């Protein structure tokens, strides 16, 4: 039987080969859905170690992306072993996208991977998305959170338009809006009317968990 503490630490230490080997042995044993669920949770806890190290400044964005890659590959392997309904209940729902005018998606995708690891359901509407797409996605998915990503400064005006549109649609009070990416700062957050801003994806996930708890 797999030692979940070892697995968790291996992911936290970014030991891809070790994680792969441990999961290979585990899957070969023909585990039950419940056992598989405990292994999924160990992987997610390993990702928390990565997030902590990132916030402490000992890991960097490249390490975060590598960890997300290991986690995604691990979950892909484990998914077929889980029966329907055996998964965790989602911690929350977030509509996430890169705002209109901006086509960058690396930061958005890192944030998405960390959110999924933390148990969120992420509705990713893609890049270069206008206000109407965010409003429609919020109406369709009733999220607690909306995440707006932007690298270029031209995304600031887009973020404001989107937040204003959420207000006009009567949805602004129903969601917390978080903005992230190279374009954001305390000043831009104040200007666009966001609830939270950060350039740090791990810190944003923590804030997201706070919002939905």
């Amino acid at each position: 039987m797999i030692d979940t503490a070892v697995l968790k630490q291996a992911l936290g230490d970014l030991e891809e080969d070790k994680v792969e080997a441990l999961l290979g042995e585990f899957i070969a044993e023909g585990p039950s859905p419940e056992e598989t669920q405990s292994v999924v949770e160990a992987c997610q806890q390993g990702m928390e170690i990565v997030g902590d190290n990132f916030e402490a400044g000992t890991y960097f964005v490249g390490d975060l992306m590598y960890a997300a890659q290991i986690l995604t590959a691990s979950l892909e392997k484990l998914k077929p072993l889980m029966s329907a309904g055996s998964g965790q209940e989602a911690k929350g729902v977030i509509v996430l996208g890169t705002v209109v005018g901006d086509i960058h998606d690396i930061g958005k995708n890192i944030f998405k991977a960390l959110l999924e690891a933390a148990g969120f359901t992420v509705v990713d509407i893609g890049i270069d998305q206008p206000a109407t797409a965010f409003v429609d996605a919020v109406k369709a998915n009733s999220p607690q959170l909306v995440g707006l990503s932007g690298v270029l400064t031209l995304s600031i005006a887009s973020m404001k338009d989107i937040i204003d549109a959420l207000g006009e649609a009567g949805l602004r009070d129903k969601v917390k809006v978080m903005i992230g990416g190279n374009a954001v700062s305390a000043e831009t957050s104040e200007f666009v009317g966001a609830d939270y801003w950060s350039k740090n994806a791990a810190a944003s996930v923590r804030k997201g968990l706070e919002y939905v708890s």
Partner: protein
Amino acid sequence: MANTEELFAERSAIRADLLAGNRPKRAPVFASFTLEAACGLAGVSLLDAHYDLALAEAAHEKVCELFYSDSFPSGNLRHPPVYQLLGAKNWILSSSGAVQHPEIETMLPEDYDDFIANPYDAIMEKFLPRVCAALDGGAIGRGVAFAKAYQEFVYQTAAGFGIIGRLSQKYGYSAGTITAPMTEAPFDFVADQLRGFKGILMDCRRIPDKVEAAVKAALPFLLKLAIPPQPYPGMQGFIPLHLAPYMNPQQFERLWWPTFEELVVEMDKQNVGATIFAENDWTRYLDYLTRLPKSTVVWAEDGDMKKYTETFGKDHVFGGFFDPTITLTKSKEECIDVVKEMCDICMKSDHFYFTFNKGVMDVNSIDIAKLQAVLEWVADNAYY
């Protein structure tokens, strides 16, 4: 006209002192706006301006009319017609009409050996056809497509220099911190144009030996790109830096830094200084930057200004840090307080110039009147 000539002479003297390592009489103001912002300021369609250079010139001139600067304050690095003739996927227009670089994977992990063995052939025969639809065909078609795109590139570049020349003469601008071609750090080239941001960061973990060899193989090409046909002392080439702040220190030291240092040292030997745009925060790598030749100029997006002043700024020219978007929320007086404090810190070095933390890209990301006040305050007050 005499006034413009006097302005040019005074500004050129300030710039010359700055780049020669002497204390200038005041910190020069090198404002920076992109064509996107210029079009917004002029009320001109960005998409039209990409294809109509008279419109682009009118937009650039609007920046000159509105904002103080000692050097030409507006510019455009990327020309959509060139990329469209090539059917390029690595530079595309977003819905706003801004030219942007999407995440691409031109070189696959299994292509490393080919690239390391013969980078030129790998780029020409494998990678360019993948990233440029017009270059993915028979030899004649590829040749014609390449020739058309190159002709357009030369036309656009020459026309761009024409605009800079005319407006510089009209407004009495000196040159700025970039007077020679642009190149890339070898690691950033392999990342941005070949493997992609994500791909290269995975490779650094999985196949670092191949990354190291590929980066070394790319160096001669990036050096060639940096050196104009007839370099002369005082020329400054441009290197926008990208990946290093996202890497861990071990990866940086082994894979990113050595070929970059070699590139900059070799450029310096050939009379071309490097003006590097330090994207993100390079404070943790200041000791490395300080080792670079004294001809190196840093344009910093973010970071600890005091540390820059006390380390890099001892012998090197630096500027940046000022975020124009603060004009959206702060009062005019508060904005000026920010810039006063910056000058108090950075002008402890004799080698500081004022510029924004990056080129202003969107007119909606600034308050025009407050930014005008900031630039005028620096021009009137940042005297040594």
